[in-house]
């Protein structure tokens, strides 16, 4: 079946010739009209639209946005904060960058609608330190929106006011974890908080109720408010509504960002048609479907089981190419849609070396708060680095797995899983390659195959 057409909702103007990131251009293209209408409605109605839309968070966990908002403690009398997660730190993910750099006002409009709906009077955009120009672009966009009456005091004459501030991170992956991000915003080391009791919806920033939403999610809120939750929920597939930006990197002919209705495109269509297939003379070997912490998929393996299709339960028997790119299907086959970062590796890549690269990342980024994660991520890095640069033993795969198995489920935040899943899945799916690596690496390295560790 040919791949469906892209459905560009969020990325409608990305890379469009002549489209600039200033407010005049945004307004020429209908910008801030949704906010104008939204502030004439009751906040509860807007919250209801988001609930009806079925919108799920685009940052990684895929949690229902409407439910997240409904958990906010509105009785405490404390101020409610919105924190925009623009940390975009999951390797393989590069969607928010383009929204921020090319269409910042779309994000600001989404933020303001969200703030109005939730009675937020102060919002922070936590942007990763590696986007210095992005921070400047957002600051300029906020100033423009403020002077046009779309942000700041007395928005559009309603008497409602809300300030947005940009806060720059400083290169730490863990700041993408929402409670770590909150600690960082408070001026501390970003050590994630334990839940319970520190659910941001109740005890978030400054111990006040806080909503943390991803950049792309907030842009979707604008479109939900625009078309209504009902209409939005008809885009995509049931339970996986709307559109989603898929970021494809690695060994394909046309890497890049592609926006589809959620669940309407399969992995095979995405990689073979949309991205032009493998590089000349190569074959796909493995793909990580949702950012580097998602469990790896091996080309050639089959996924079988039963799934719900409407009211019925049907059997499925999929290869990697058949998997629909939505939250539930990827979870069902044992991985995740995560942040939408699809990393493709062809048959030139050694899985031991690829895992060594990933392990170096997680070891560098563990915040060090929980012993299993701090020590475990370091040992996984050391073992894979030794396999690549020193002696590799047949039993190293089992050793790696035993370390990984002792991390997941034993840490304060999900980083424990994030660093264990790559090792667990690489060993489960490419175990033979780990066993035979010591022998295999005696052969001379083929020309052009890059080092990874």
């Amino acid at each position, binding site marked *: 079946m040919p791949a469906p057409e892209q459905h560009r909702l969020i990325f409608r103007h990305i890379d469009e010739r002549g489209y600039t990131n200033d407010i005049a251009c945004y307004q020429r293209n209908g910008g801030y009209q949704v906010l104008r209408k939204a502030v004439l409605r009751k906040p509860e109605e807007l919250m209801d639209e988001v609930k009806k839309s079925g919108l799920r968070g685009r940052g990684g966990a895929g949690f229902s946005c409407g439910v997240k908002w409904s958990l906010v403690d509105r009785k405490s009398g404390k101020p409610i904060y919105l924190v925009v997660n623009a940390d*975009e*730190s*999951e*390797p*393989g*993910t*590069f969607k*928010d*960058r383009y929204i921020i750099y090319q269409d910042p006002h779309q994000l600001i409009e989404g933020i303001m609608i969200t703030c109005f709906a939730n009675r937020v009077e*102060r919002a922070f955009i936590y942007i*990763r*330190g*590696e*986007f*210095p*120009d992005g921070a400047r672009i957002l600051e300029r966009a906020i100033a423009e929106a403020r002077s046009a009456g779309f942000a700041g005091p007395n928005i559009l004459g309603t008497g409602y006011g809300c*300030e947005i*501030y940009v*806060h*720059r*991170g*400083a*290169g*730490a*992956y863990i700041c993408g974890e929402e409670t770590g991000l909150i600690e*960082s*915003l*408070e*001026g*501390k*080391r*970003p050590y994630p908080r334990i839940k319970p009791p520190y659910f941001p919806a109740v005890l978030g920033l*400054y111990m006040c109720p806080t909503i943390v939403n991803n950049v792309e999610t907030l842009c979707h809120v604008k479109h939900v408010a625009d078309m209504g939750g009902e209409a939005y929920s008809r885009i995509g597939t049931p339970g996986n509504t709307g559109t989603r930006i898929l*970021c*494809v*990197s*690695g*060994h394909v002919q046309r*890497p*890049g*960002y592609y926006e589809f209705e959620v669940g309407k495109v399969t992995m095979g269509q995405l990689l073979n048609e949309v991205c032009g297939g493998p590089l000349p003379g190569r074959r796909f070997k493995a793909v*990580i479907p949702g950012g*580097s912490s998602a469990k790896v998929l091996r080309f050639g393996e089959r996924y079988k089981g039963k799934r719900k299709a409407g009211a019925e339960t049907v059997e499925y028997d999929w290869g990697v190419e058949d998997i629909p790119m939505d939250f539930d299907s990827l979870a069902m086959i044992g991985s995740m849609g995560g942040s939408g*970062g699809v*990393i493709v*590796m062809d048959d030139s*890549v050694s899985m031991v070396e*690829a895992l060594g*690269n*990933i392990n*170096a*990342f997680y070891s*560098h*980024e563990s*915040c060090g708060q929980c012993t299993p994660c701090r020590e475990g991520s370091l040992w996984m890095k050391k073992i894979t680095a030794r396999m690549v640069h020193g002696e590799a033993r047949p039993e190293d795969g089992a050793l790696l797995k035993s370390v990984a198995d002792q991390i997941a489920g034993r840490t304060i935040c999900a980083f424990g899983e994030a660093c264990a899943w790559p090792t667990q899945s690489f060993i489960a799916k490419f175990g033979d390659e780990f066993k035979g690596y010591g022998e295999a690496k005696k052969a001379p390295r083929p020309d052009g195959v*890059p*080092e*990874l560790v």
Partner: protein
Amino acid sequence: MNLKPETLRKIDEVITHYPVKRSAALPLLHFVQEDQGYISSEAIEWIAARLEIQPINVYELVTFYPMFRQQPIGRRHVKVCRTLSCAIMGAYRTCAEFQRQFATGLGEVSPGGEVTVEFVECLASCGTAPVVMIDDELHLRVDVAKARELSEKIKSESRAPAGAR
């Protein structure tokens, strides 16, 4: 502390963004590092006093967040992304080429003080791998040939008189 008036103005302004002063610690560290090139122990004490917190509360940030440094670096900062998508597209070769061009090791100041070459983790531009940031500017698809070109550019700029840069 001898901070530029513009830096002091930015510091005064940013503190007003937060209901709690301590929240301004990261912005202050950024401003001071942009002004001075690195975070000295004097800067740590100064920021702590400005935010009414203990120096240890600032020091622990400097030692945690990878972007802050406690010693000066070269005039230009070359950051090569090391993470998976860039690595499988050749980031290690790119990084080696920069090191060779400036005869320098990772994280060191090159002889003559021209550059510091570093490996960094994901720069979130994986679709255009391998990527390199030189100071605040992102460069896409930096293979060995392009790394050589960018190095030449840095060298020629540092040979030009300061006013012409």
